[in-house]
């Protein structure tokens, strides 16, 4: 038996299929993963993401610490409440984890890291923190709920105390605020608008019930995965790990190269890879033949080389299979994927595949 979130009984009562995820008993779906996926694209869905690890950093040295700890530059966070997506690297430039950092105050930043990487992340952060005036505090007592979809904020606003409702609805993308006991962030992992909310675990079941009675669909990790794949958002452990740098995982945009004198962990290794002509690229694939692309399938680029699918699956929004893949350097727009001994045709497409309710790729696209 794994760890249970404050909402476990709710999931059980709702007939969810429970699976192990990073040591947690989590809902995979409540009946139909596809319907939950569509609910988020078209209306609003709620996800229990309490398994995610929330870490608060406190102290005078916290900004300097984060400028050393992560690849993106927290100096970009100028307004209180602003959020930043980044990777935390090892000395070799490999990704220890990806995370979101919220700028709460000059002496308090909040990190949200992955569930499966909790232990090593906390150990790494604490190890690095000894050189700085900073305290590391895991907030295991907080539950976390993501409400995502075009109508998510409006529907979830019913569950926010009236005095904070206007301010919550006025939050711009990638901003957050503390609304009484509830921390509200306009962030997510689906490619849709919405909020991620942290609250004391004891308050979570009532909040969840209220979301559902407002017309929000409960969604499991299955839909979360197809939604994030369509949005081309990376999954740690699948699309990147400690042997892969952000440069080969489609995360070059999260590296804060400037100022050049900021010496974050992994910078030296990244600089070397940055100038390498053989650096692999991270691309989106659309399957033109029938079938389903899956993780670890081989990608063959004729005359150039081979790569691998890092996340593959079926896109409920498009009705075809899509994938993220790490492939050889070069300028090409077609490849083949080996599926059970057969070579299937894929087209390389610009990601995201889907976001804000719309298909962003040219499905019928002619080969160039």
């Amino acid at each position, binding site marked *: 038996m794994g760890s249970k979130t404050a909402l476990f009984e709710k999931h059980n009562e709702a007939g969810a299929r429970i699976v192990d995820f990073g040591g947690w008993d989590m809902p*995979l779906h409540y009946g*139909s*993963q596809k319907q939950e996926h569509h609910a988020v694209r078209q209306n609003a869905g709620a996800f229990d993401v309490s398994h995610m690890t929330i870490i608060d950093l406190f102290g005078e040295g916290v900004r300097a610490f984060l400028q050393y700890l992560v690849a993106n530059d927290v100096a970009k966070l100028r307004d209180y409440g602003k959020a930043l997506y980044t990777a935390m690297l090892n000395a070799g430039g490999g990704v220890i984890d990806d995370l979101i950092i919220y700028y709460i105050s000059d002496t308090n930043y909040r990190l949200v890291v992955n569930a499966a990487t909790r232990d090593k992340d906390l150990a790494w952060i604490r190890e690095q923190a000894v050189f700085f005036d900073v305290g590391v505090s895991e907030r295991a007592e907080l539950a976390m709920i993501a409400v995502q979809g075009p109508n998510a904020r409006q529907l979830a606003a019913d569950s926010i105390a009236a005095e904070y409702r206007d301010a919550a609805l006025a939050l711009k993308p990638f901003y957050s605020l503390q609304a009484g006991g509830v921390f509200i962030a306009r962030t997510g992992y689906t490619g849709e608008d919405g909020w991620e909310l942290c609250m004391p675990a004891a308050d979570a079941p009532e909040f969840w019930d209220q979301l559902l009675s407002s017309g929000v669909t409960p969604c499991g990790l*299955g839909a979360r995965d197809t939604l994030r794949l369509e949005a081309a958002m990376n999954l740690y452990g699948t699309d990147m790990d400690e042997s892969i740098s952000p440069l080969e995982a489609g995360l070059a945009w999260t590296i804060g190269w400037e100022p050049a004198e900021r010496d974050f962990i992994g910078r030296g290794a990244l600089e070397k890879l940055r100038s390498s002509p053989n650096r692999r690229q991270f691309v989106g694939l659309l399957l033109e033949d029938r*079938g*389903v692309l*899956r993780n670890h399938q081989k990608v063959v680029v004729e005359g150039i080389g081979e790569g691998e699918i890092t996340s593959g699956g*079926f896109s*409920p929004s498009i009705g075809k299979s899509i994938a993220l893949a790490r492939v050889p350097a070069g300028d090409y727009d077609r490849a083949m994927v080996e599926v*059970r001994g057969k070579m299937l045709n894929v087209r390389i497409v610009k990601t995201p595949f889907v976001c804000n309710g719309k298909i962003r790729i040219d499905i019928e696209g002619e080969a160039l």
Partner: protein
Amino acid sequence: MNELPGDLLYTKDHEWLRREDDGLVTIGITDHAQGALGDLVYVELPEIGQDVAEAGEMAVVESVKAASDVYAPIGGSIVAINEELADIPEKINSDPYGDGWIVRMQPTDTFDESTLMSPDDYQQFIDDLDD
């Protein structure tokens, strides 16, 4: 829990088999199997005329979640495939013992149904899995 159809035989890999009046057998996957897989999105079917050995790979069903092999409960030759599954794989979700059938097969002469489970035995088998 839905009642299992009483006229079918079952395997440990969650296939079902029905003996038809014309001597052919129809094969599909059970309600338990489709529930575990979730929404089906693709079915890879064998060729008509293909011979399959008992317990040999016969088809692949893919859900949003995963790909899963379908094994032949008995040896035989494929005489029909459910072509509708190419466009509507979710028929296996909605009607696993009816419109969601996968293949029809001409069994080999040595067809031995004692290797298959009765509805009661299969029910017991899946009940034990859930414990």
